[in-house]
């Protein structure tokens, strides 16, 4: 089917021209399932951390967005306890012209600029709004403790 051609090509390109700070490796027995590692962006509270994620391409991909989830614990207003990510392109702003690469870049960008006004983890967002410095300290601590 034409869609697997797309997945193969995307995978090929991800391997041939990796994005700095991001790696995505497809499982050998399931080409729709990727182990993802994102390095915490510099000058963010997540700097120095290594974050593991899972990415799954549903049957309807690319008509429906990939499913992406953090496996590493992270203190971030747009990521909840279960690792689910609040990102518009993973929901209503998804376009079939977007790719795994663009999705992961957006997730990386989200780490650089948390948005407490569109929260998924309410308590974290609250913390972020009320005392940003303190929240950032917590995020750094979590990065140190969990994102190794």
């Amino acid at each position, binding site marked *: 089917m*034409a*869609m697997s*051609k*797309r997945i193969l*090509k*995307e995978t090929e390109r991800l391997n041939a021209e990796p994005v700095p700070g991001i790696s995505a490796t497809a499982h050998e027995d399931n080409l729709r399932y990727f182990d993802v590692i994102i390095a915490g962006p510099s000058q963010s509270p997540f700097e120095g951390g290594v974050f593991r994620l899972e990415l799954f391409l549903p049957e*309807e991909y*690319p*008509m*429906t967005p990939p499913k992406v989830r953090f496996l590493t614990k992270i203190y971030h207003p747009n990521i909840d306890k279960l690792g689910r990510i609040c990102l518009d*392109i993973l929901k209503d*702003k998804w*376009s*079939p*012209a*977007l790719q795994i690469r*663009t999705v992961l870049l957006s997730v990386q960008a989200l780490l650089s600029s948390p948005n407490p006004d569109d929260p998924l983890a309410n308590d974290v967002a609250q913390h972020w709004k009320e005392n940003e410095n303190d929240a950032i300290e917590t995020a750094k601590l979590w990065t140190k403790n969990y994102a190794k």
Partner: protein
Amino acid sequence: MSSDSEDNFMEEDSDYEFDSDGSDMDYEEPNDLAFAEVSDKKPKKAYEVDFSVQSLQDIKAAQANAISHVAGILGLSQDKAAQLLRSFKWNKERLVERYMDSSEDVLKEACIVLDDTKTTSYVGKPRPGFTCSICFDDTPSKVVGLRCSHLFCFDCYRHYLTQKIVEEGECRRILCPESGCSIIVDQPTVQKIVEPKILERFRQLLDRAYVEDLDNLRWCPAPNCENAVDCRLPHSTFDTVVPTVQCACGNKFCFGCGLGDHQPAPCQLVKLWQKKCADDSETANWISAHTKECGKCQSTIEKNGGCNHMTCRKCKYEFCWVCMGPWSEHGTSWYNCNRYEEVSSTDARDAQAKSRASLERYLHYYNRFANHEQSAKLDRDLYNKTEKKMEEMQRTSDLSWIEVQFLKKAVDVLTSCRMTLRWTYAFAFYLVKDNMTELFEDNQRDLEVAVEALSELLEKPIEREKIAELRQQVLDKTVYVDSRREVLLEDTAKGLGEDRWEFSFKRT
């Protein structure tokens, strides 16, 4: 027709054109029936509202009418006028006004590109070097793109539109597949690309959206019914008016909330009551059980008809199923089964007693509410049994079909009265007792007594010789019961209108 001009410009092969005969079923000739006049033949009762039933055809015609009208005024194609109307929820006046004010903003908000070529999409051969960014195919035979020039291969476009229409149920705003591009895929383009079955679904969704967008329309909730009801009452009046309507298919429902007829209770009260019942269902469940114990000899008694006048088989004690009190006290002027005697404040001193009292009070009303529902079902079961007997009788005797039909009418009236009675108990639960509530309770009691009498009559064994007599009795009672219902509905409708009662919840 709107798409004619667009059809000409495209560099397309006709085999990709689904609608190549140029027929454009969405825009039928404007029809005078568009908004059928609200009829008022007979004088309206206080509890009735004006409405009209709209068939699917009427609904399509009304859309076509509005579209042609706006297209004419603004000098736009039918398709663009339709898109604008959808983004203005079919408010023609506001659309025209805003469009005259600043057409650019209006078009932009509606994601419409207007240009002099009057073209909406390109369907044709790809340029050399093209790669579809959805499937990565670089040798498609055909590509599609809107005026934004975001091209994708035909198969991907079709797949994309099908996904949006079938899986996501989208129809008003299907955007160009390119990320971040906010140009709407217009209807003529959809028509050219998707399969006929999908196009049919798309049109259904548009009709659906039209009815949902208009405050004065609501689909009939009956399964397989394609009609909608048009009711022009402002929704803000639904706190004092219960807008019961009846579809041409016979289904009676509330225009305000879509539930089955719940007169005399206003929608807000119904919602609160249903929530309360769901929350308290466990405590209340035991009540709707089918069996109870006789108040005198404690033998188990099963209820098998709708009638609440029970007689213990063992000791012949006659009592009321609902309050378990002796039946001798019912059906007289001091019948007291419907009225809850509020516990005086001195009795309910501490918190525990209070919460107990409030539960008891709730159960008093819930019990009666649930019982009428249950009884209506039992009445109907009994009728079904009786009907067989009547048919049998009709076949083996000289009785005419008409002569054995009286039971059906009686059961129908009985059922609708029980439904009304049922909601009077939810109504009464929220009513703050004062001297204005007495009339309501009297009406409730009168209807209840009449209903039980009719129900009891229907449980009588049918004897061939006495059938004429029974028929007359049933007919008389049926007329009477119906009139009691009317009195109650008339009075509650007036009472709500003049704000006669105080309710224990905040009315919005």
